[in-house]
């Protein structure tokens, strides 16, 4: 059998040296850039020249000890909420993926309940727990108690805030971790099992680091969301950043200046966290293009 001869190359239109490539011109780019620059300049001008912003007051309060303390409390609440939330969330994710139907439906129910209730409602609920159960007792379930303690003493405003934030966060964290675990190729689990690697090691050394690639971007969202989300605990009179600036402007009437102080601190915190996220992602992305 013979094949028809194929023309070796298309006919050439031009002899001589290879032609130079001229990129297309984008004539509207320059006017558009100019327009944006003008708008930015106007915004900057409005911020600087209007004395009502009271930049001197902003400067005076930005590093005031009470404000710095409130920033630290905001960070503390965020850290507690995220660490406890993701710890519980990971347990819930594993329960949800368990073949045991009781474990998996309990986890499902938890996520359903805590995703359905507004955080602010939950916080007030924990804060007022003493109205429902004045004393909490510890001991054998349905059996005798070893000691009991006043709910008001155990659940301080800080504890109520931490509890509320962590339980709320755990519901979201559970779904993020579960999604991450499901994104790992089942072949990885199988290969690790075939090598005889113990179960815990398989989870922490083989599966979780790979799941982290999809967990970290979502967790970053959650952490940054929580930095700002802690502001709702102001209803429990906890002196975190948002509550503190309200206290100050109620005293001195400099509302905009103090809101600006809070805005600047929130920007700083989220910027630092975004940079940290970039490096964490790079760490878990190693070995891949």
């Amino acid at each position, binding site marked *: 059998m013979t094949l028809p001869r194929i023309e070796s190359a298309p006919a050439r239109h031009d002899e001589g040296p290879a032609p130079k490539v001229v990129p297309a011109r984008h004539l509207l780019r320059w006017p558009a850039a100019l327009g944006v620059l003008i708008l930015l300049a106007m915004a900057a001008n409005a911020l600087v020249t209007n004395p009502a912003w009271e930049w001197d007051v902003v400067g005076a309060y930005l590093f005031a000890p009470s404000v710095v303390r409130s920033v630290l409390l905001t960070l503390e609440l965020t850290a507690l909420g995220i660490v406890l939330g993701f710890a519980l969330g990971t347990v819930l994710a594993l329960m949800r993926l368990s073949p045991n139907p009781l474990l998996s439906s309990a986890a499902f129910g938890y996520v359903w309940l805590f995703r359905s209730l507004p955080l602010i409602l939950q916080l007030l609920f924990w804060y007022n727990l003493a109205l429902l159960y004045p004393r909490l007792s510890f001991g054998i379930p349905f059996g005798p108690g070893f000691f009991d303690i006043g709910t008001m003493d155990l659940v301080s405003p800080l504890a109520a805030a931490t509890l509320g934030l962590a339980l709320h966060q755990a519901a979201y964290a559970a779904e993020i971790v579960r999604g991450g675990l499901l994104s790992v190729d089942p072949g990885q689990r*199988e*290969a690790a099992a*075939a090598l005889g690697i113990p*179960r815990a090691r398989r989870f922490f050394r083989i599966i979780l680091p*790979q799941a982290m690639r999809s967990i970290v971007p979502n967790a970053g969202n959650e952490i940054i969301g929580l930095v700002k989300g802690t502001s709702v605990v102001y209803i429990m009179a906890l002196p975190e950043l948002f509550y503190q600036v309200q206290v100050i402007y109620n005293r001195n009437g400099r509302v905009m200046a103090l809101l600006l102080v809070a805005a600047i601190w929130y920007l700083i915190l989220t910027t630092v966290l975004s940079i940290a996220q970039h490096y964490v992602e790079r760490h878990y992305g190693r*070995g891949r293009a």
Partner: protein
Amino acid sequence: MVELRGVHKSFGSLHVLRGVDLDVGRGEVLVVLGPSGSGKSTLLRTINHLEKVDRGTVRVDGELLGYRRSGDRLYELREREILRRRTQIGFVFQNFNLFPHLTVRQNITEAPVHAQRRPRAEADALAVRLLERVGLADKADAYPGTLSGGQRQRVAIARALALEPKVLLFDEPTSALDPELVGEVLSVMKDLAGGGTTMIVVTHEIGFAREVADTVAFMDAGRVLELGPPAQVLDDPAHERTRAFLTKVL
């Protein structure tokens, strides 16, 4: 070395293995052929208990895998004991399943150090020797993502060998490879077979079966239809199904 007796396995209503008996002696190479869906991969996976059998027994070096016998009952073993017995069996997957976040060296030393509790230095030395054996001595610190398919499969073979297993199982080790990369993997496998490693290989490489196998098994619809030396099964098959399959793949 490996002995299967009356192995049955179903997935729901799908009866995948319908009573398989096989024997592989020490140092022998068994090649399993058969159309897709005939139960070849499931058979291989029951040998290291990645799949539990519904009925029948699997023994490796005289030891029941995954079960303890008492009277006429088999009791499934605890996970720790199953893991210990699994380290006597190396498994090479079609899709390599290397750990992408670990270097080649870490891939190889993970099981010796954490499943067999061998000292780290000993495992590292072993990794160097094994990488030399598969021709990848310079890739110890590379990540799998930077290797070609053939190189990845050779690392996967080195990883399986690091357990110093009594038997090596290969599940279509060259099916995911570009054609020009198949040769390098087959040549490593030939070396192993020549060195006296006990191997069970599920593959579509008839040439490899002819050249390397001591025994060829042809599987169809969950049964071993034909079993014998390569010359007999490949050139003078007794069953119509075998003949039809061979004319398709040759």
